[in-house]
């Protein structure tokens, strides 16, 4: 049976991650960093992955990983979502890791587990599980072509590149050109990856199943990140409205606003159940296609609405660059496209539960 609760160990993990993020991540710093050449918080990443070993949650112990499951990774992502943390966790420790697991690339997994290597799957962030994705040309052992919309590529040492022979290849980032794109989400930046006769090296395995598995895990666990984000938006807005006085009253006492927040709370509660079901299904491999499609079809609109409500209810201050609600809104809106839109996931649901289109 699906376990929708958090275990004591998961709650302990949550506390540890939350404490670290509370200490180390201040919104002003995140905002300043987004405008620099190095949008990722490398020092935070090192603590999360080196000291706490979180990069290896999904990697078996015999490969120096933690041998944990998607349930634990989901808890980490909830906390990273709450803070819109600029670290390549979802892209490297979940998506790229899953692709490598699918290929049985043990030596690379050892490097990812120890976080001496950050990896990115060179498939556009918008790609839904099961959707077609571009590949670069493979000729005489050399890879050539351009791939766009690659999330966190600027932070990656290793790129997992699909080629037109149907294979997935590991390419050192230093041997290709990674060009930053101007990303809507400042904290999960996109880049163009250009390969101009780069040596292909060893073929890791078939790209199709590896990418599909990676994107499914990405989509399923993205729901937990969206949950954290939505929960932050709700909590912070409730806190602000209790504090803020207008018309000689606490603004949070006006029924028109209370009902909006209560409605949002209800959606966040539902999102938690959906996200937990997806994490549990990915961990057990049962019903994972449907659970991830349901979670992702539900999560994105809720996270976007939570961020939009937070902005509206913070009113003027919410429109400013200095208040972190814009980071949250940009992440939420970008997340609504990442790993497939809600519509794409609804279409997947239709297939899986036999509710066919006309």
């Amino acid at each position: 049976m699906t376990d929708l609760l958090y275990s004591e160990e998961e709650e302990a993990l949550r506390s540890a991650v939350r404490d670290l993020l509370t200490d180390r991540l201040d919104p002003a710093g995140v905002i300043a960093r987004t405008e620099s050449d190095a949008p990722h918080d490398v020092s935070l990443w090192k603590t999360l992955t080196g000291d706490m070993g979180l990069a290896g949650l999904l990697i078996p112990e015999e490969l120096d990983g933690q041998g944990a499951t998607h349930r634990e990774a989901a808890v980490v992502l909830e906390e990273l979502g709450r803070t819109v943390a600029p670290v390549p966790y979802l892209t490297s420790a979940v998506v790229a890791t899953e692709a490598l697991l699918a290929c049985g690339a043990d030596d690379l997994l050892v490097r990812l587990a120890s976080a001496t290597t950050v990896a990115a799957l060179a498939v556009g962030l918008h790609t839904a599980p099961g959707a077609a994705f571009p590949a670069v040309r493979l000729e005489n052992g050399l890879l050539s072509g351009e791939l766009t919309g690659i999330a966190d590529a600027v932070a990656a040492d290793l790129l997992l590149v699909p080629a037109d022979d149907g294979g997935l290849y590991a390419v050192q980032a230093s041997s290709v050109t990674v060009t930053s794109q101007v990303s809507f989400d400042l904290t999960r930046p996109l880049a163009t990856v250009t390969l101009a006769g780069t040596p292909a090296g060893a073929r890791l395995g078939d790209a199709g199943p590896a990418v599909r598995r990676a994107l499914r895990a990405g989509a399923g666990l993205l729901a937990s990140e969206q949950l954290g984000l939505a929960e932050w938006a709700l909590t912070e807005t409730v806190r602000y409205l209790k504090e803020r006085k207008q018309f000689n009253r606490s603004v949070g006492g006006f029924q028109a606003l209370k009902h909006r927040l209560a409605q949002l709370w209800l959606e966040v509660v539902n999102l938690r159940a959906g996200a937990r079901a997806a994490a549990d299904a990915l961990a057990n491999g049962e019903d994972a296609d449907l659970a991830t499609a349901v979670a992702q079809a539900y999560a994105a609109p809720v996270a976007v609405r939570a961020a939009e409500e937070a902005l509206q209810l913070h009113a003027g201050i919410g429109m400013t660059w200095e208040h972190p609600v814009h980071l949250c809104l940009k992440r939420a809106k970008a997340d609504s496209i990442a790993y497939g839109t809600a519509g794409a996931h609804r279409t997947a649901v239709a297939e899986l539960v036999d509710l066919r289109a006309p």
Partner: protein
Amino acid sequence: MTDAAELQRRTAQLLADHPPATTGRTDFLEARFDAGLAWVHYPEGLGGLGAPRSLQAVVDAELEAAGAPDNDPRRIGIGLGMAAPTILKYGTDEQKQRFLRPLWTGEEVWCQLFSEPGAGSDLAALGTRAVREAGGDWVVNGQKVWTSSAHVARWAILIARTDPDVPKHAGITYFLCDMTDPGVEVRPLRQITGEAEFNEVFLTGVRIPDARRLGEVGEGWRVAQTTLNNERVAIGGMRLPREGGMIGPIARTWRERPELRTHDLHQRLLKLWVEAEVARLTGERLRQQLASGQPGPEGAGMKLAFARLNQEISGLEVELRGEEGLLYDDWTMRRPELVDFTGRDAGYRYLRSKGNSIEGGTSEVLLNIVAERVLGLPSEPRTDKDVAWKDLAR
């Protein structure tokens, strides 16, 4: 400590002593109550064993597998869901001994005399009066409305005003009312669906002995909170399989009737299917929390979610049916004993579900409750708090 193995042993003993095949329905249910296997979390002697509530599932599964009769919880839902927990918490020993057993077996059906024509969402503004006679008994006069099961009920939980000179919440007392007493008149209330699932109940000089008072005089509002909280749990706490709710019939219609499909309807159906599935998962999560002894506030929201979903889904199904949606199965005034949200056709479901956001607390009141009790937002300024009930605008 009563554990699962002990409950299995006791259940096996019950089945051995009272084989379902040869034992009368009521006899079996009484024996089950007396064995403490009715609701295992209740105290010994009152149908339970003081065991963890989560272990009830162990008993239920064994009995169901053995083909034992159940007590038709849908028919006696108000007694089980609302009256019983309130009597357990506030009743005297005599009241608990007298009422819980026939309530649980279903021999005595209960109804709830709370709502009034002049006090709906503002339930504490109720005007039904209970006046104490010299001998200590009470005489009740007033009118109640939206009373499910009143036409089959043997007993009622009743709240009435016993002191009009204090603020509205302070002057209410809670009673157990005998529905067969002179002065109790039940009239069907025909509703939007054509049927009369509910009743109006007129109380004219009804005498209630003081021994049928539940809780202290003037404490009725506090007692009623127990009933109302349990009502919301009863409404939201059902365990559903996937497609177990209102989404089930429309999904079947969609699969069986490809000629009705359009792209617009498909998108709307999928959106609602996903929402129904996550709402179901939330209900399952709430159930798991309760079972592990960490109840969460999710219950407060479940009823809100199901009300909106039921309305949207049934509304979509009427549209999906196109020409058939212009028809209705039957406008005859019926007197159903059961509330059946899904058993009739789409038009009925659409109309009946309109009540889901009104009955058991309107969605607007529940949103206030979530905002204030879960999110901790301030309540709106109130003008009725320190005013005697008799001086309130009505």
